[in-house]
């Protein structure tokens, strides 16, 4: 593996190496694509047991402030932040005036203000945009002293609870600070696999010791390869594929993430376009696609209707290990977006049959928590 000298490493890099990781460069970081067992085994292990993902490359942006900050952030995000409870998380977007997506993100209201988890490739740009929009009135920190570790799969709750007592009580899409060896970890119940799980923000110096504890309890390291097949089976979007600056949340079929309370009066960046699209519809929309047989249709595969007119393009396509077959997502013209619509995919110059299908491909196992 040849790695650029300027490639950044996460605090778990040595641990990855000791576990025979194969590395790739991702968003400027040297990240494990897989370990010795391979993508399919890692995928299946996560679905039935508990997988550990190093997602330290992602941005952890802390913005400090009180009610004034909430008012300012409501001018940016399509969320009802005034009524968001402390320690609750929401999925949202940073958009431009045309509702084009700069990034998709998870925002959590914490005691000190807000914690926003950003995509690795977008985080520096997001920071610039948010700084400008907030006018320098609030302290903002894009963390580089904290690692981010995700633990995903049905056994994750029992494993994490044995290391951090009390996490079993967290509801999905909530988080809290928990003490570990005299320092504070921020733990949320969330994830990107369609499974129950957690994301743990921890100081770099403690990350390896903490992660090794999870391994000792039976969890296994999982690479970015399986992270991609898991999220695609769960019908979740990946920035740079399903989402980019030329797509809006409505086109991406994510209007559920726009708070209803914000649709009547708008007042957030991109609100005019969003409200307009919700009322009058969009010309294209994101759908799930299932090729017939075993054929895999990758990103950029052209989609045709039966009379040979191009109607769209695939944005992600792979083999789904838990589905045991090929799966894809893409954008098609609205009139072809109904479930069971027959379409054709052009792969290596030939057209193959496929069907529009329901998302997710793999049914979720989210746990509501004990409460």
């Amino acid at each position: 593996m040849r790695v650029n000298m300027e490639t950044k490493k996460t605090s778990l890099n040595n641990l990855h190496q000791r576990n025979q990781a194969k590395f790739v460069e991702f968003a400027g970081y040297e990240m494990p694509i897989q370990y010795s067992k391979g993508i399919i085994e890692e995928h299946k292990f996560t679905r039935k047991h508990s997988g550990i993902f190093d997602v330290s490359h992602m941005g952890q942006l802390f913005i400090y402030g009180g009610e004034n900050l909430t008012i300012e952030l409501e001018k940016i995000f399509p969320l009802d932040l005034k009524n968001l409870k402390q320690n609750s998380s929401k999925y949202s977007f940073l958009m431009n005036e045309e509702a084009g997506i700069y990034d998709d993100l998870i925002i959590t209201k914490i005691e000190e203000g807000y914690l926003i988890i950003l995509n690795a490739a977008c985080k520096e740009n997001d920071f610039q945009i948010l700084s400008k929009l907030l006018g320098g009135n609030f302290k903002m920190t894009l963390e580089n002293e904290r690692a981010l570790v995700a633990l995903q799969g049905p056994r994750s709750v029992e494993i994490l609870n044995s290391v951090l007592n009390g996490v079993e009580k967290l509801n999905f899409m909530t988080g809290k600070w928990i003490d570990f060896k005299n320092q504070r970890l921020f733990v949320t119940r969330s994830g990107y696999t369609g499974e129950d799980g957690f994301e743990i923000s921890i100081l770099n110096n403690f990350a390896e010791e903490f992660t090794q504890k999870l391994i000792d309890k039976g969890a296994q390291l999982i690479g970015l390869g399986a992270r991609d097949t898991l999220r695609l089976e769960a019908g979740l979007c990946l920035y740079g594929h399903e989402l980019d600056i030329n797509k809006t949340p409505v086109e991406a079929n994510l209007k559920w993430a726009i708070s209803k309370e914000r649709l009547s009066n708008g007042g957030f960046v991109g609100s005019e376009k969003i409200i307009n699209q919700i009322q009058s519809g969009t010309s294209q929309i994101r759908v799930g696609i299932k090729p017939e047989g075993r054929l895999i249709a990758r990103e950029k595969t052209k989609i045709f209707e039966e009379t040979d007119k191009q109607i769209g393009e695939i944005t992600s396509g792979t083999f789904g290990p838990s589905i045991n077959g090929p799966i894809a997502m893409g954008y098609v013209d609205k009139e072809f977006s109904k479930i069971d619509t027959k379409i054709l995919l052009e792969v290596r110059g030939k057209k193959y049959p496929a069907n529009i299908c329901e998302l997710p491909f793999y049914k979720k196992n989210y746990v509501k928590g004990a409460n």
Partner: protein
Amino acid sequence: MSEVKFSKEHEWISLEGDVATIGITKHATEMLGDIVFAELPEKGSNVEKDGTAGVVESTKAASDVYTPVSGEVMDTNQAIVDDPSKINEDPEGSAWFFKLKIKDNSELDSLMNREEYEKFSKESSS
């Protein structure tokens, strides 16, 4: 004992009489990762040396399979189309891809023996 030769595109070829059996090497499967799709040439079709004669896809990417020699496709291995994971399990044995009736034996001369191939694959992956 039939002799096995290797191409720079990581195919192996084993000759019995004028019929060659062709597959991809263990080294190739290790680079590809888990193989989840295989497409083979049609029986009775003619393939040209270094031309495309199939496709394999792993969870990561699609790769063309080339034929190291020209000939007529006599047989294809349906078992690896039905269960592509067999290619990871036994790439240089039961998971062969296709059999050719060789057109020109001299095409074999430019191929590598095992020792040369192992040296080549080590150099090309470092």
